[in-house]
Every structure is written in C-alpha cells, then in structure tokens.
C-alpha cells in the first residue's frame, strides 16, 4: 500500500498540509512579539542618537529618514546610512537637529551584522570615537585626510571612511527633508 502511486502523491500532500498547519500555529503565536521586538530595537537606536525626541515618523519609503518630534514639535531628523566598508556595509544611524547639527551617531555592532575586522574596524563602535561627530555640521563630516574634521581609527581607515562618507552622503541626499 505504501508504494502505490496514489499514496506516493498523497503522502507528500498530507506532510505539507500538516507542516503548514503546525507552522501557522507557531507563526500566529510569535508574530506579535517578533514585531514588537523589532520596533523596540529601532526605538532604542533612535533614542541613543537623539535622546530628547519622544516620537518618530517615517519620511522615505525605504525608511532611511525619520522625522523626530519632542512633545509634538519637530525637533530634528534621524538618518540611516550603510556605506560599504572593509568587510561589508557599515550601518550608521545619526540624529540631526533642526539646525543641521549632529546630535549623536550609532553604528550597528557585529551581532547586528557589522562585518568589519574584529579589534580593528570594530573600533568605530567605541563611544569615544563616535563622540567626535556630535555637534558637527554635514560639511565637516569627512576624514581629516580627506579635508574634513573626523580623525580615522588607526589601522581602520576604510571602516572610518565608510562611516563618515556614508553619513555625509545621506545627509546631502536628504538635505531637503532635514528642515521642517
């Protein structure tokens, strides 16, 4: 019986049916939580680069630019960029206030997909290095050896440049969205 032609087809069908049923149960049980976690992760990153803001609204379809509000008043913009570094894209999230000044930048770590060399390229994650972006205008966001004001991490020029250039490009591209 198990080798009849009809059962060959039917057994695959039944297996797929049971599998689909089991997965739909698990999916419906976990969907809400997975969604909430992803929202919480985005909010935490935004709060890090612009602590004063309390709500955000997306401005571009690819969700790389967000308007930031403080008590209902527009207080700045969140810009996300991912320029190619040494091992892959370097995802940067930056806050810009209404005068066009950087309020903070955050770089996704290795657990979030950063592929830069451990111990060299990953030094761009250090708060001391990121702090030099705060208070700068988009025109100043360029490595000092490229004519800007950002000093590169020793031994990780490519990673540093990916952060600076990616951020500067994004700020220039979306310049019209930065002012309310």
């Amino acid at each position: 019986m198990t080798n009849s032609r009809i059962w060959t087809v039917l057994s695959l069908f039944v297996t797929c049916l049971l599998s689909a049923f089991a997965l739909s149960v698990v999916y419906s049980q976990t969907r809400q939580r997975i969604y909430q976690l992803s929202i919480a992760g985005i909010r935490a990153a935004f709060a890090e680069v612009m602590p004063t803001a309390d709500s955000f609204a997306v401005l571009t379809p690819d969700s790389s630019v967000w308007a930031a509000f403080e008590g209902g008043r527009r207080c700045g913009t969140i810009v996300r960029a991912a320029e190619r570094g040494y091992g892959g894209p370097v995802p940067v999230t930056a806050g810009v206030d209404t005068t066009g000044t950087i309020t903070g930048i955050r770089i996704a770590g290795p657990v979030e997909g950063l592929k830069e060399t451990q111990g060299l390229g990953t030094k761009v994650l250090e708060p001391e290095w990121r702090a030099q972006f705060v208070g700068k205008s988009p025109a100043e966001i360029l490595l000092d050896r490229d004519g800007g004001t950002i000093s590169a991490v020793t031994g990780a020029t490519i990673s540093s440049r990916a952060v600076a250039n990616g951020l500067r490009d994004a700020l220039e591209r979306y310049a019209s969205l930065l002012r309310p």
Partner: protein
Amino acid sequence: MNTEPSRLSYLTNGILRENPTLILMIGLCPTLATTMSARDALGMAAAASFVLICSNVVVSTVRRLVPDSVRIPIFIIIISTFVTIVDYVMKAYQPALYRVLGVFVPLIVVNCIILGRAEAFAYRHGVFDSLLDGLGKAIGFGLVLFLMGSIRELVGAGKFFGTRIMPAAYASSPVQFMVSAPGAFFLIGVLKGLVNKLQSKNR
C-alpha cells in the same frame, strides 16, 4: 537475546564512538561558524538538538507510511518544519542569540547530522530507539560545540560565558585569531588530531 546493552549503546554511540563532528566529520559548517563563544555554541547546540530529536521521533513514527521513493522530500519537510519553529521561537524569545546565530538557524535544515540520522537510523528503527539515537548524537554534537566555543572564547577573548576569566593583562590583548574564522579551522584540526592520536593508541 540480550537487547539492553545495545539499546543503551544507541545513546552512548553518538557521544564518543560515533561522535558526529569529530569521528563522522559531518555537521562541520555550524561547528566552525557558530562557536565564537560558549553561549553561541550552546544556543546552536540546543536549536540543532531540538530539531534532531524531534525529526528522529517523527520520522520513526511515520516510517511505515512513507513511500520509499519520496522519503527524502518527506524527511526534508519534517526537518524544515521544526527548523522554522525554532527560527520563530528564537526570534521571539531569544532575539540577542538569534542575531548572533543569524543565517545558521535556518541552515540547520541542511545539517547533515539531522538528515543523516533520519535516513540511516530513524527510518529503520522504532520510536524509542530513534529518540535515544537522536539524544546521543545531539549530546555528542553539543559537547564538541561547547568545547570549541569555550576554548575559542577563553583564548580569543579571555572570557567564559561573557565573564572575564583570564588575567586583565591577557584579556586586554587576547589571541583574537581564535574568535575569527581561521581560529575555528585551527581548533577543529587540533581536536581531530587529538582524537586520531587517542584512537590509534586504543587500537
């Protein structure tokens, strides 16, 4: 006939004599890629063990109903169902671990140990024996992963489960080679060499 010792050997075979990674040399991809630290290694071991044990039990339960000609597609559907369940549950309840293991969670589908046990053991044995076999292979796989993860984290970062163990002077400039990809190849080579040495002595 005395069947008790052979039953127990289904369980113990996987740990030493037929250790999936160090003797059979299968399932090496997750062994190399997810053992940067003891915690990551345990997470991977737990996920793969769940899938291995569940697929072994289900395959042996339905084995008399499965037509020979389509058994592999059916095994794959069963395995990928459990992998997707692990994927959803880990994403929802262990998001930090999920971000580290990343693509290697869905890739459990193609872990040779799991399909290998379904085809070579569960398809031909009873439910209880298949459970023991899955458990044994899972323990064997988990032990090697845990060993690799612990050594790599200890030497490569001076830590164990994220807590510093080695002296501060070492932990500030550890042998970072060990937590990068070549370190994994190096360590599995050393472990395999040790196993071969022990085996040749016993012979």
